[in-house]
């Protein structure tokens, strides 16, 4: 038995060294740097895979409030819900061109859930309501920036139901009714 064991141990050791070498070689210095900088979240895993997708965000322009598109790159996770969350997070971060944002920066995205019939349930923290400036213009902007942005980027999202702290809310601040899913209104997007 001992005679057989020695070559087996050597074989296993060689295999192990080979595997370790392959593993180290597969991680480029760039990736290692990435990993060291940020904690590992699903988004970062996607970043490691180096797959991103370009998405379009809508921000109201100062003079007439019509939406102007702005593109961003988000990690392509393959999951609509995760990508939709990333898109909404970008929307909250605001415009990189200095346009007003239609969502208060304090708002946080909870989860996005998409049903088979194409209704996306987009959940936000209550900051969406508390930090909201109120006014029917502001409410309409918020609702349709969310709905139009999601429907524009995801073919499978036909309408959007906005939730606050996981629950249905009557309105954001007394105007637009939130007890139904909204279909997008692309007439609010600037043509020029």
């Amino acid at each position, binding site marked *: 038995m001992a005679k057989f064991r020695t070559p087996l141990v050597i074989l296993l050791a060689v295999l192990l060294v080979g595997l370790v070498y392959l593993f180290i070689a597969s991680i480029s210095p760039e990736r290692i740097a990435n990993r060291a900088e940020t904690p590992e979240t699903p988004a970062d895993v996607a970043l490691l895979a180096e797959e991103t997708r370009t998405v379009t965000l809508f921000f109201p322009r100062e003079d007439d409030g019509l939406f102007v598109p702005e593109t961003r790159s988000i990690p392509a996770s393959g999951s609509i819900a995760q990508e939709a969350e990333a898109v909404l997070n970008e929307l909250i971060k605001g415009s990189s061109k200095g346009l007003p944002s239609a969502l208060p920066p304090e708002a946080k995205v909870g989860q996005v859930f998409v049903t088979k019939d194409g209704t996306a349930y987009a959940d936000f923290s209550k900051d969406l309501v508390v930090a909201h*400036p109120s006014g029917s*213009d502001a409410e309409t902007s918020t609702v349709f920036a969310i709905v139009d942005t999601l429907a524009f980027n995801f073919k499978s999202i036909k309408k959007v139901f906005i939730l606050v702290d996981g629950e249905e809310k009557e309105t954001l601040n007394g105007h637009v009714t939130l007890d139904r899913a909204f279909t997008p209104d692309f007439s609010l997007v600037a043509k020029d």
Partner: protein
Amino acid sequence: MRIIDRPNKKGGTRTAKAGIVLVAAALGALLFLCPAASAQQRTIVLDPGHGGLDVGAKGKFGAVEKDVVLAISLKLKALIESNLDYRVVLTRDKDMDVSLENRAALANNNDAAVFVSLHANGSFRKKAHGSETFFLSLNSTDEESRKLAYQENTAAGVGDRIVEDDKNLIQMILWDMAQSAYVRQSSRLAEIIQRELNVLLATENRGIKQADFKVLRGVACPAVLVEAAFISNPEEEQRLIDDAFQARVADAVFRGLSAYLRLLRRD
């Protein structure tokens, strides 16, 4: 048990009869004494937006929507009562919370001829300015009618008790859709009020628009929501806190209402 019941019933009927006579006499006296309160006088319900904890939109200089719209509504109430044969009911006459449902319910309980919700606008855009008048959008109707159809379908062929429950649900859904029957009249009212706002306020004409505003949904009469200028715009905020400007907003809505009610009577 029955023996005890009988005298009670008789007593009850007697009391009821006496009560009816008393109420009739009181009503007769009321009609005789104050002809202004005759059955013909109808009600206009004015709804100063927000109130209480809900301050509404806020201005840079500290003005809040709830105060501005209450001041305008009180001026408008005075104008209507001294010039038109209508009674005015306010959804709030002081700084207090009123639910959106109760605002609509107040209009329906008073059999209102017209419902006007008064607001000042707020925006994420600092320069947003102008005035506009809203009436209910019908975008939600297909959704609602689908809900209704579902209720009707599921009500068919099930036990009596469940049918009872569903009837209440349908009632509730119908109540929520009440405004759908008045959208055309509301659009006319919005048009007329907006025209007067343009003439009297010299604010930018943002036109008449449709939106699914909760406060309008359950109102069973012509109903509009006026957004007079933007409190979020510092220039317009200054105008909104000005007494003369508030009086002009009230006057514009008053003129619009008068013109609309004249049309209504002619039809």
